[in-house]
């Protein structure tokens, strides 16, 4: 099923025969969504003139347990703001967000125990080693630091980081390695909803592939629902069960990658590719978006 411009989602997605276990699509009536975003709205007041900017505008998304939901959009479209609203790092102006039925505003602590987030900048104490950072995370989430250490070694070994590297400061590691440690840190807490905010942005191709494979492995082996924001259309197509495109704070379309490609081919007469989908619904090519990003950096 394809949703264009926040149409209500009520009909359950049929389960494909080739994927009997994983259920894709908005949850049917009566099934509790893993993540429910209803009419979420967030405004910021910016600049000296106190201009009001709507970063997230009446966005509604319902994500089923075990799904990987991708959020695509140009820079400044509201992707990260949406992730921050779910992460309890921002408060809503309107609408509601629920994680397994827990409202982010009313039941913040319960939501915090269910989620974890990996941000684009791998937020660590860079002078501390991976072990020290992971011990800090484990204690914050009430885990046994020794058990967490053993588990971290296993996860990081899977990501190609040997135990002997875990005692050195993180600042001595490449960005790719730091991002892998960030993912290991998030998984340590066994989140039921994992928010990945551009986890592969800026990584070299090898690290990017490692991280992508690991996300697939997490999808297949952990009972985690994943929300992934990315600029990488190939990555989104490879990893995500469904994708929502956000433009100027609004969710303009959502569906499976196949459905979205079919939509642009059928209704817009364009090549059935994710690039066409991105262009059609954001009015930008990915190259334009990257140029914008570079200008922002400047």
């Amino acid at each position, binding site marked *: 099923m394809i949703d264009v411009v926040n149409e209500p989602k009520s009909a359950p997605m049929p389960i494909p025969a080739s994927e009997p276990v994983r259920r894709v699509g908005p949850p049917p009536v009566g099934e509790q969504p893993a993540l429910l975003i209803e009419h979420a709205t967030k405004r910021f007041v910016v600049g000296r003139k106190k201009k009001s900017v709507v970063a997230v505008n009446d966005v509604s998304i319902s994500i089923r347990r075990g799904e990987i939901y991708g959020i695509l959009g140009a820079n400044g479209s509201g992707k990260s703001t949406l992730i921050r609203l779910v992460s309890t790092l921002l408060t809503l102006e309107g609408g509601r967000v629920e994680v397994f039925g827990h409202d982010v505003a009313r039941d913040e*602590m319960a939501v915090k*125990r269910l*989620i974890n*987030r990996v941000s684009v900048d791998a937020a660590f*104490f860079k*002078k*501390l080693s991976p072990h020290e950072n992971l*011990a800090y995370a484990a204690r914050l989430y*009430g885990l046994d630091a020794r058990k967490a250490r053993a588990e971290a070694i296993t996860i990081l070994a899977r990501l190609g980081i040997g135990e002997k590297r875990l005692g050195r*400061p993180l600042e001595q590691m490449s960005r790719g390695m730091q991002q892998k440690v960030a993912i290991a840190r998030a998984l340590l807490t066994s989140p039921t909803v994992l928010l990945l905010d551009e986890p592969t942005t800026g990584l070299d191709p090898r690290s990017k592939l490692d991280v992508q494979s690991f996300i697939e492995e997490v999808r297949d082996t952990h009972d985690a629902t994943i929300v992934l924001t990315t600029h990488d259309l190939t990555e989104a197509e490879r990893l995500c069960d469904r994708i929502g495109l956000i433009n100027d704070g609004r969710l303009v379309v959502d569906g499976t990658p196949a459905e979205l490609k079919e939509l642009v081919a059928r209704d817009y007469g364009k090549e059935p590719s994710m690039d066409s989908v991105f262009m059609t619904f954001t009015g930008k090519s990915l190259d334009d978006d990257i140029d914008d990003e570079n200008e922002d950096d400047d």
Partner: protein
Amino acid sequence: MSIATRELRASFAFVERNFNLTKRYWGWEVAWLVYSLAAALAVAYIGVAQNDPVLLQTLIIGAIFWNFLSIVFGFIGETVTWERWEGTLEYTFMAPVRRYTQLIGSTFFAVAYAVIQMVVILIVMLFFFDVEFTGGNFVTAGVFLALGSISFVGVGMMAAILPLLYVERGDQMVFVIQSIILLFSGVYYAPETLPDWMQVVGLFSPGTYVLEGIRGGLIDGLPVTALLNDVWPLVVMGAILIPLGVYVFGIAERYAKRTGKLKRVG
């Protein structure tokens, strides 16, 4: 796991993290210790130059205990600043940890760190200067140090909201508050030395009562019971400022979440 156990374990996260950071930034720790020692010695030599044993005692007490109190205040006041520098503020604020748990952990480490530095400076001071506190009441000094720590934690918590609210200037504001407390609290001189209006302002500083109490104990040998006029303001300040600090910090956190200031790195 009970809530208390979970919160205690979580508060230890901040103790362990700060210990690890101190270890990793050991070069800066040595530099700050040398600076604190040099500053304390330089101030104390004024007493030697005046050939006045009581002045020397006054200055030594001021230097050592101000160093202690300013460390406690600084650690708490800069709780948010540290996280902003490192870029971990959002990560910590997203964790299922109550803010008072974070502040308890930060306070515990700050007091332990300040005690260690105070002992080191005291030992060096005794090595440099022929000063004795033979008639001193060390119990009184200990009580005032403990009460002072509590009050300074309260003031520190109030100050800690500034870096949360003012991303670029908050840390500077904390530094200004610390400087003002130094000036008005009679750290190196009796508060009566100050102009009347400054003495009135000094009445609102916990430093004034801590320093008076410790000097009363160590120089005059007075028991705590003889210094109750300095005790009750500290008790009242601690009882009001700590819960108020946690409450106001909560308001500031909600404001930061509403305006998006947690994201900013300063």
